[in-house]
């Protein structure tokens, strides 16, 4: 493990911590513009976090340690997840420790704890939210794994850093399997990040909320950590999508000029991606919860098709 690798890893961590709320703010801003509302300032998520961190956190009498511990575990999982996804450089010392399958595992661990914490208090909203979250999670996970397997088969490795460097540095080939996988990935990330066709991140309407129902009981610094973790998750998913499907611009090991160039490239890609996300959210209507299995089954199907097409066409 070289000094440079550690520096790159720390840089990626800082970028994730600061970039994630910025990305959420940008998506909110785009959504407000598209819906003809006055947009909140770009730094609004930071102000929100600042406010919440200084507030007292109220905890129910019946809460067990799981309830107190969960925000930290969820935040840690999401931070680690956004650190093993290559954002600026593929030279990450943490990358050998966790491959693409471990990434899915990290998301699953966070989901488990947030659901346990939501059920811990015993309110009906928390339980309902936890059940819905688990339903969506167990349908989205296989689809996400299929997408990752397709990329792994193409580059013969499940390590994200290796996938990115082999995808970014090959001659231009059209890979239909990756196109299928890209559509599947978009659907999965919409579902996993509680975005509009599946869940509305801005709602507090009791019967439809999923993510909001999970964090309903939290306040103060715990809520701040959970909000930050949610934006980190969006950041990690966006970066994973960019790394798999638009890997150009991510620096190789020991390539300093590319590393300097990687940041503006990433910012531009994230800005366009965030705008497209806001566009999808504005154009589509939220589905009934019983339609979600259909939606995610389609994502799984596309993932399997991607694998099959890769095996048939070798591309």
């Amino acid at each position: 493990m070289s000094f440079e690798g550690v520096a790159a890893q720390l840089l990626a961590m800082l970028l994730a911590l600061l970039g994630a709320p910025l990305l959420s703010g940008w998506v909110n801003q785009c959504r407000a513009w598209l819906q003809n509302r006055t947009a909140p300032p770009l730094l609004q998520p930071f102000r929100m976090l600042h406010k919440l961190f200084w507030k007292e956190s109220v905890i129910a009498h019946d809460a067990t340690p799981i309830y107190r511990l969960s925000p930290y575990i969820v935040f840690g999982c999401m931070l680690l997840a956004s650190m093993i996804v290559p954002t600026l450089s593929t030279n990450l010392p943490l990358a050998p420790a966790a491959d693409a399958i471990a990434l899915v595992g990290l998301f699953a661990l966070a989901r488990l704890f947030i659901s346990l914490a939501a059920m811990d208090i015993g309110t009906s909203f928390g339980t309902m939210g936890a059940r819905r979250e688990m339903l969506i999670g167990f349908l989205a996970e296989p689809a996400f794994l299929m997408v990752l397997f397709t990329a792994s088969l193409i580059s013969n490795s499940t390590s994200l850093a290796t996938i990115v460097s082999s995808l970014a540095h090959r001659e231009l080939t059209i890979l239909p399997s990756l196109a299928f996988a890209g559509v599947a990935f978009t659907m999965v990330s919409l579902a996993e990040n509680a975005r509009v066709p599946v869940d509305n991140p801005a709602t507090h309407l009791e019967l439809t909320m999923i993510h909001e129902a999970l964090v309903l009981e939290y306040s103060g610094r715990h809520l701040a950590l959970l909000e930050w973790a949610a934006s980190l998750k969006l950041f990690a998913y966006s970066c994973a999508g960019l790394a798999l499907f638009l890997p150009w611009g991510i620096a190789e090991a020991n390539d300093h000029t590319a590393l300097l160039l990687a940041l503006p490239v990433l910012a531009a890609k994230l800005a366009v991606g965030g705008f497209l996300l806001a566009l999808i959210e504005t154009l589509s209507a939220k589905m009934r919860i019983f339609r979600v299995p259909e939606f995610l089954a389609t994502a799984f199907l596309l993932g399997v098709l991607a694998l099959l097409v890769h095996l048939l066409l070798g591309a």
Partner: protein
Amino acid sequence: MNALTPQLVNLFASALLLIAFAMLAQRRIVTLINLFAAQGLALVGSTVTVALATGQTHLLYSAGITFALKVLLLPYILHRLIRRLNVKWDIETLINIPTMMLVGIVLVVFAFNLALPISEFSRSIARGTLGIALACVLLSFLMMITRSKAVPQVIGFLSMENGLFFAATSATYGMPMVVELGIALDVLVGMVILGVFLFQIREQFDSLDIHHLEKLKDE
């Protein structure tokens, strides 16, 4: 002919397969027709690519016929048909789309395995896509089996023809011009006859649900 050509054909083939799946899961008749037009467009794209790459000029003509017939004329006729039958906003009650998707996946695996040894014999640049063409045909079959309304069945029939046409171009650079013209005319005439047929069904049963045809008896 450069290295990009087979990849482009593969891309169009994948689009064809994707649209076949989308048609399988689509409930609205209007969207179904638009998907059919998009499938025709993908077919035209792949035919033109093969034609330009191999210098087979007759494929260009057949691409032109496909474009005129399957992207412009047939969707127009179908749109007019559903407007006059008043089924434009009909939504078909499909039961259990996920199960149908899984059956579709099994069909795709079957088709790919079946086509793999056959495509070894072909020397066409797009021979790998024979499996996809076969899968499209089978998926259209599945669509015709699972639908109960008459118009989606007609669309399934037409999309099956798309799959067959794609199989012909991908495996053997297309059929002779006479055969292709004949098939194009057949599809057109078939479409007209089916259109008349649909009106007759509705006249007789006041509905386009073909389950009524099962108990056809003298009364």
